[in-house]
């Protein structure tokens, strides 16, 4: 079975973003970029399925600028077999990404698609579900455990209040939650080997998908700043402040 994994190039999760002074967007100039943390978990899960003999090939796909090749190379160093970059410098919204991925799936025919549950830049949490709708596949979102048996996959999902397990008929789409696994680090020899693995570049035109805007970003602002607080010196003072000043207890 072929497994398809998607990875997104995003701002490194440790970077504190700044809003541009003209409020047009956040400032991404000279900011460290990295693979979205949930995508790392997706790559890890796919590689583990291959190591377990469940998956025969792991194909990794990214959509975005030329520079997203770096994230594909990282995924290849982690164990993916080959990469596909759908290159576009335009702003690709979730629905467009899902449409492009649906075309890639049509060409590749994977048994399982593993994606992150959300990207930490837009925080949308949409693409996996949209792709599932467009391909008519079932979806196992927010997965903390994935078990493949025959043509079914059992997915344990993190839901409000606990865990839920569903069984999906493959081909299926799984989106990863944080506790699915602990991603490995790429070793230097594997990083070197990854440079020779195949990486194919396509464009939205090649895939026959028009990039259409469904939303318009009007402005981006910093969130309201909290008033500076005070440090109390004792529990007694804290209780007094909460009772008499903040009046919350």
């Amino acid at each position, binding site marked *: 079975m072929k497994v398809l994994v998607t990875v997104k190039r995003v701002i490194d999760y440790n970077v504190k973003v700044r809003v541009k002074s003209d409020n047009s967007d956040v400032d991404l100039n000279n900011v460290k970029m990295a693979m979205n943390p949930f995508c790392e978990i997706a790559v890890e899960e796919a590689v583990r399925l291959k190591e377990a003999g469940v998956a025969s090939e792991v194909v990794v796909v990214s959509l975005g600028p030329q520079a997203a090749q770096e994230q594909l190379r990282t995924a290849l160093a982690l164990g993916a077999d080959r990469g596909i970059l759908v290159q576009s410098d335009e702003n690709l919204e979730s629905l467009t990404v899902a449409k492009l991925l649906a075309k890639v799936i049509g060409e590749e025919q994977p048994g399982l698609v593993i994606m992150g549950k959300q990207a930490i830049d837009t925080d949308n949490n949409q693409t996996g579900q949209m792709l599932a709708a467009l391909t008519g596949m079932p979806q196992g979102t927010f997965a903390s455990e994935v078990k493949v048996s025959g043509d079914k996959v059992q997915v344990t999902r993190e839901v409000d209040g606990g865990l839920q397990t569903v069984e999906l008929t493959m081909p299926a789409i799984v989106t990863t939650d944080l506790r699915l696994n602990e991603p490995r680090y790429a070793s230097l020899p594997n990083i070197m080997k990854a440079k020779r693995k195949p990486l194919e570049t396509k464009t939205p035109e090649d895939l026959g998908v028009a990039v259409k805007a469904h939303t*318009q970003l009007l402005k981006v*602002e910093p*969130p309201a700043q909290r008033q500076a607080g005070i440090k109390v010196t004792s529990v007694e003072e804290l209780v007094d402040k909460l009772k008499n000043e903040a009046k919350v207890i």
Partner: protein
Amino acid sequence: MATLIIAEHDNQSLKGATLNAVTAATQIGGDVHILVAGAGCQGVADAAASVAGISKVLLADNAAYEHQLAENVSLLVAELGTDYSHVIAPATTAGKNLMPRVAALLDVAQLSDVIRVDSEDTFARPIYAGNAIATVKSLDAIKVITIRGTGFDAAAAEGGSAVIEAVTAVHDAGISTFVGEEMAKSDRPELTAASVIVSGGRGMGNGENFALLESLADKLGAAVGASRAAVDAGFVPNDMQVGQTGKIVAPDLYIAVGISGAIQHLAGMKDSKVIVAINKDEEAPIFSVADYGLVADLFDAVPELDGKL
């Protein structure tokens, strides 16, 4: 112009998050209808009918919708949705699972985690873990939206008298089945609805020490939360996690104990009215958002605080 709200429920009771979505819908304007899709869920429809501001309840009561699997319910919502200008749901795990599937079936975008309604087509939502607020205009004919509960007050659960209309359409995609669930049991208030939350982080040391927070929480009528570090260390179950990837909360009082205050945690709680931090590291970033900070060993401070309440 009319809005369809997808009710969040467990076939027994209407979940509180739905009431916040009702408020958002009334701010958008126009008629507000609510869809209750489930099995044996007449009671939920009755409860939804008495919510203030709702004019019609659509009840789709069928075994195919029992566990509200997205594969089945999305087909129903996409069919009904074409009659509406807005289709909204709370941004809970159920809403996040279902709504993008609905949006794609309708060939429209989805606006996730909306915190403010500016007009019928313009909304605000946080991006980059809440470090920026984007104002976004939808260009689609049907606006599919999930609502962040902490951005809107809850609508009154009583006072309405909507008509209940049965929906007979049955959609069973036949590609997914419910196997089972394991729900964490708690007598304390639900995390996302609690007015006081006591949260613990890695500094708690182990799961047993959370008993300190539970005792404090019981005195305050509070819910108990946790940082990702505490969940990953196995101290507490993951549904207690507050943060970008866990629950978003905004209680009147949030007490962070042994939590350093990483960006991802702050994303889940920085809209709380009053934040208290108890941490022995005076450089911890949590102190930059705390209204009241106490630099102390939590194992001394928490029992003392408990004793003084």
